[in-house]
């Protein structure tokens, strides 16, 4: 994302204003946001700390969205996957690109939104060889006059939102060890929260807290290892017995395997200022072959609640103990206040890769409900008493062949963030419908070295459609409506008070649907497939705009952006097999599209 500034005369005013905005608009959970006027800006990818991706703007609504027209566009000139959400602050739009992670600032006060400046962090070129699944970046965070974001080569940078000059830059890890960063940071209580990627390269996962003013590292919480490294102390109170005990991040692994066990933190973070807890999930444990890591492999595939100032863990819940299918727990946590069984509960809603949509008491970590939101046969339910998922023994991976295991490694849903409408009370979920087979391979090869691995092939699940966009009732714990899509829905979702929900498809359709029925109201064909995050804002002219980056790629779209061979179904860790025809429907290339009513 980029960060631009507007007229100089606004600078002083805007800095002061920004502090208030962050406090009032982003610093509250969904239930409270309902009564706040939307300031028409977009300061973080998830819109607010509660991660609702819901805007109260309603100028564009179900009755008139059919007349939505392209207002202007902007090319990034890059061909890798564009997963970021643009930010809109003080009538400037900021866009972060995939590697080389340029930050563009566009002036919304002028016709066509001309570029104000571009900031080029120039990350190490070798980071491209290390990134697992395309060289994506999921966006930036606006905080106190600065645009803060991460670069692929494991650095966090703060850029002055007015001038485009670097304020600070901090190296958090080393690309040479297989680490990278693709996630968007958030800032809570003046602490920038950043986690690493690299679970496919035998790295040790961590989440860092940095001083947002200086970039200085305040703490680092590892995803595995002894309690002191995981920042587990006397205040750590997991809800379930299975997650209690000293040094489980060591004892649930064979030997020293935790040192290379993954459990990175490469995706979304939410924050509840009242409870003063932030929430995020960890990636799958490594190596892929579960026979070589007997045990629960904590804290892989787990959710954590921590304090932002110290990183101290307050509770944790491991969703997929001894993960067998690459089910990271990194998906978004939407913070909601819901009436569950007659009681008002502070919950988080977490649609997991393993196929369950968990409603969890966010103060304690108690699972209130966990129902499947897509087709699942790798497990047979979640026991709410023990918190344990019941794995299906006939779908256990290992050094043998399994077939028809659903969901495939990207899960019923991957990182693609959902939205929650305060008007309908529904969660809008972009997701997948993929199954897979996993076969032991004898002689794979890497740079002079034969090795044994699993050959994974993914293919469409029941019904033949690879993607679904659905509306979920978090109280009733059931799907209200769903729309089938040809390809996995790899974009984010946006909900608005205009009764319209937006999302994009990998074959390049940007769509508006009715939030109560799913009925399509409008569509626009973008130049490349969409894996970005839609946002909406009020322009300086008082009009409502909707913006989306197109530019196919990512893990799902790597077959196009990375030029992988369609004949090799095992490419992109087996995803290519399910995406062989994507190249017939779209080509690569990053472009921002901004829409409004005429």
């Amino acid at each position, binding site marked *: 994302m980029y960060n631009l500034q507007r007229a100089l005369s606004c600078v002083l005013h805007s800095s002061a204003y920004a502090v208030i905005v962050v406090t009032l608009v982003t610093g509250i959970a969904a239930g409270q946001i309902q009564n706040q006027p939307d300031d028409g800006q977009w300061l973080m990818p998830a819109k607010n700390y509660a991660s609702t991706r819901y805007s109260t703007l309603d100028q564009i609504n179900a009755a008139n969205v059919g007349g939505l027209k392209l207002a202007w566009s902007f090319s990034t000139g890059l061909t890798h996957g564009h997963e970021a959400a643009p930010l809109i602050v003080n009538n400037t739009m900021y866009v972060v690109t995939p590697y080389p992670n340029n930050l563009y600032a566009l002036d919304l006060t002028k016709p066509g939104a001309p570029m104000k400046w571009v900031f080029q962090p120039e990350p190490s070129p070798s980071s491209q060889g290390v990134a697992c699944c395309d060289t994506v970046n999921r966006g930036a965070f606006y905080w106190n006059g600065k645009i803060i974001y991460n670069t692929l080569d494991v650095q966090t940078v703060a850029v002055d939102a007015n001038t485009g000059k670097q304020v600070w830059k901090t190296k958090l890890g080393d690309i040479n060890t297989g680490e990278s960063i693709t996630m968007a940071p958030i800032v809570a209580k003046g602490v920038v929260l950043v986690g690493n990627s690299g679970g496919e390269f035998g790295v040790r996962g961590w989440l860092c807290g940095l001083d947002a003013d200086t970039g200085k590292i305040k703490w680092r919480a590892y995803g595995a290892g002894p309690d002191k490294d995981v920042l587990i102390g006397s205040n750590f109170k997991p809800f379930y017995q299975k997650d209690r005990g000293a040094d489980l991040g060591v004892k649930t692994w064979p030997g020293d395997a935790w040192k290379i066990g993954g459990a990175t933190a490469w995706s979304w973070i939410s924050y509840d200022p009242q409870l003063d807890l932030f929430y995020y999930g960890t990636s799958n444990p490594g190596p892929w072959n579960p026979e070589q890591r007997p045990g629960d492999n904590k804290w892989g595939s787990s959710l954590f609640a921590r304090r932002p100032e110290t990183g101290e863990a307050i509770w944790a819940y491991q969703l997929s103990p001894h993960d067998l299918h690459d089910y990271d727990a990194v998906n978004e946590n939407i913070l909601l206040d819901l009436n569950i069984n007659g009681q008002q509960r502070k919950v988080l809603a977490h649609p997991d890769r393993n196929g369950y949509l968990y409603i969890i008491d966010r103060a304690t970590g108690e699972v209130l409900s966990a129902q499947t939101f897509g087709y699942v046969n790798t497990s047979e339910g979640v026991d709410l008493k023990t918190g344990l998922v019941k794995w299906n023994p006939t779908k256990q991976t290992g050094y043998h062949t399994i077939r028809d295991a659903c969901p495939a490694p990207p899960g019923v849903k991957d990182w693609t963030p959902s939205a929650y409408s305060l008007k309908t009370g529904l969660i809008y979920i972009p997701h997948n419908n993929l199954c897979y087979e996993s076969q032991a391979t004898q002689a794979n090869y*890497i740079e002079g070295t034969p090795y044994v691995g699993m050959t994974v092939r993914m293919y469409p699940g029941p019904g033949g459609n690879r993607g679904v966009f659905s509306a979920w009732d978090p109280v009733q714990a059931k799907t209200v409506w769903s729309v089938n899509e040809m390809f996995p829905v790899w974009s984010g979702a946006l909900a608005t008070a205009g009764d319209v929900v937006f999302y994009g498809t990998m074959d390049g359709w940007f769509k508006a649907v009715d939030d109560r029925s799913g009925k399509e109201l409008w569509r626009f064909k973008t130049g490349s497939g969409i894996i970005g995050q839609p946002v909406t804002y009020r322009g300086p002219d008082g009009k409502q705009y909707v913006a989306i980056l197109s530019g196919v790629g990512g893990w799902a779209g790597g077959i196009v952006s990375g030029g992988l061979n369609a004949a090799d179904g095992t490419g992109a860790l087996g995803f290519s097999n399910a995406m062989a025809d994507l190249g017939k429907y779209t080509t690569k290339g990053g472009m921002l599209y901004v829409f409004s009513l005429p």
Partner: protein
Amino acid sequence: MCSAFRSLFIALTIASGVFAQPAVLKVCADPNNLPFSNQQQQGFENKLADLIATNMNAKVEYTWWSQHKNFGKQSLNVGACDVVLGVTAGMQDVLTTTPYYRSTYVFVSRQDRGLQIKSLLDPQLATLRIGMHIVGDDFAPPAIALARQGITKNIVGFSLFGDYGEVNPPRKLIDAVASGDIDVAISWGPFAGYFAQQAKTPLVITPVTPAAFLGIPFAYDISAAVRQGNETLKAELDRILQTQSATVQRILAQYGIPQVQ
């Protein structure tokens, strides 16, 4: 036209692949992965590339490409080069030459320990501290044989990529044996043979037995790879590797590459 002239003409044509191309042998190689290759061209695959090129009256031109999954396939198939050396024979999605050597996974231990381990089924392995490379997201093949015997706790993983900012990341595994950090390494032969030559402590190298477990082989034929369909270049490489086999063997011996039949 005399016949000698004709032969020369044909040879040059084959060597350059296509008429319009200059006599250049385009090779993809890792810039930091001895004993195989490095950017200073000190690896045995650098020497083999020179040998092949010389016999084609061509010059080697490198595309340096860091090691990662599908390195060979991706570099070859996007046209970054015409040849990748050192792939497993019969590898999918590429065309491989007749193998020019066969090596094996080996045990590496300090001579002064006198461990005498030859088998992956040796009961000593249950208690020794065993080092192995972790390759991407998987262990090297013998790890499966150990896991099936319940041996997982005493295995120490060393990333094959290691810290790529350091020189020859895979050597850490062999250094750990020499320093006593681990009791025994189970390593792909070429790493063991080469880095053991340079170790300050005498090390013993023994091929693992059995040669396969659960159908997983621990010894592999190694070939050069060209793009699928490039039969002309494959035939030329096969011819050179055959006629120059004595030189190939001398180079492999210089680098201490353990070979098996």
